[in-house]
């Protein structure tokens, strides 16, 4: 790659929208790269200031989601909301639960009597 092409590539990269909508039915978006708190991003055609930093590959709410809302990614259900979240908020273990089997993290012991919903 020539240095010119490389610069072009990086310019393109900077222009790529940082949030990915994987399927039109989805109610979450995926971070294409690490995004800083306060960074201005585009969310469904509107500019939006990120309430908190989010890492590459993580999800945020495309719109406000009520408890028990089915979360859709790739157009398919990936779980239900445990609590309400605002638009743009990080959607992860603290507010989304599996409709199948509980997920494990280093902090949560799945064999303990307190299930992940209480964390």
């Amino acid at each position: 790659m020539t240095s010119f092409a490389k610069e072009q590539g990086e310019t393109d990269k900077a222009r790529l929208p940082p949030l990915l909508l994987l399927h039109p039915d989805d109610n979450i978006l995926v971070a294409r790269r690490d995004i800083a708190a306060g960074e201005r991003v585009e969310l469904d055609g509107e500019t939006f200031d990120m309430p908190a930093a989010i890492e590459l590959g993580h999800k945020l709410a495309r719109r406000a989601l009520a408890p028990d809302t089915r979360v859709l990614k790739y157009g398919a259900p990936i779980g239900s909301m445990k609590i309400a979240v605002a638009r743009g908020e990080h959607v992860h273990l603290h507010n989304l639960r599996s409709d199948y089997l509980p997920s494990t993290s280093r902090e949560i012991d799945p064999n303990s009597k307190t299930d992940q919903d209480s964390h």
Partner: protein
Amino acid sequence: MQGFLRKDGRKGIRNVVAVAYLVECAHHVSRLIVQKSGADDVHLIGFPGCYPNKYSLEMMQRLCTHPNVGAVLLVSLGCEGFNREQLRRTIAASGRPVDLLVIQQSGGTTRTLNAGLDIVRKMRAELATQTPVPMALEELIVGTVCGGSDGTSGITANPAVGRCFDWLIEKGSACIFEETGELIGCERIMASRAITPELGREIEACVDKAANYYRIMGYGSFAPGNAEGGLTTLEEKSMGAYSKSGSSPITGLIKPGDVPPRGGLYLLDVVPDGEPRFGFPNISDNAEIVELIACGSHLILFTTGRGSVVGSAISPVIKVCANPDTYDRMADDMDVNAGRILRGADLDDVGREIFDLVQRVASGELSKSEALGHQEFILTYKQFEPIGPACLPAA
């Protein structure tokens, strides 16, 4: 492509001498033989348990007669439960050179090592005289596995492997995807892709079995690193993993050791049958890779987001890295940077890169993990019933 023709008509893309320990007590001596042979094409495989187990015997028979294996040295301690004579007969019947050393009869570590080195030297010399023959894509079996998945896996590396699978299947290859426990939540979509409704019902039933099994184990197949990488739920991880299968119809449902009878897309059911007896279905990624290889996979497409470094004994592993940041950190271990899709690259271009690389590695080019000497191997206790008649509908 070229391959080594075996007596059963299959062709191998490598010509490996496998040194196989038949109980953990013979592991060190076997490892010494492999290490001191100084050859990259001498690979260590084995089974650690002393109790006999039908699954492990069948797996070892499949692995020792895998098309990539040219000759086998079995190393037994002497008193273990493994049916070494049956394994030896199976290998001999396959037309491969095979030898057996029993440490208790050979006179201990050093004498067994020296005898083993001599045998391996002769086996390698014999294999060196074999001339490869032309090999077509329709003779190739490719398996895929994901390890260290994160929020990028289902967007980049997995769908790119899916494209590659679609093109390989068009050319007549057999492609295998697996870990039914990591497909929980995808059972209905998968069933709808089956070539017969009866196969579709078998697929749904095997995912139900997996969900039940993992429920009893107390953990789904979901590691802390998955969550750190942005995945929240098992079904989310499943949807991402599922995209490795591409869009071809599902031709069959197989179990470890079943070799696809023809080209097409196969789902490998890795979750044991019956009540859980021996713990988790597959304790780590290499346990899945070993099962894919026992099904005849010539090479493995391994997608990773967090960054796995493993390879495998017997069959080359190609690493497809989903996460561009991981790729930047671990490029020496990664064959394909699928994460560049997030930086604007086209999914089809990455799929094409994988498709081309599969053919180059099948033609002898070393994958990154192969060149780095990764030859991980793990086989543990399991139990399976044979597949039902609906699992492999006639074409």
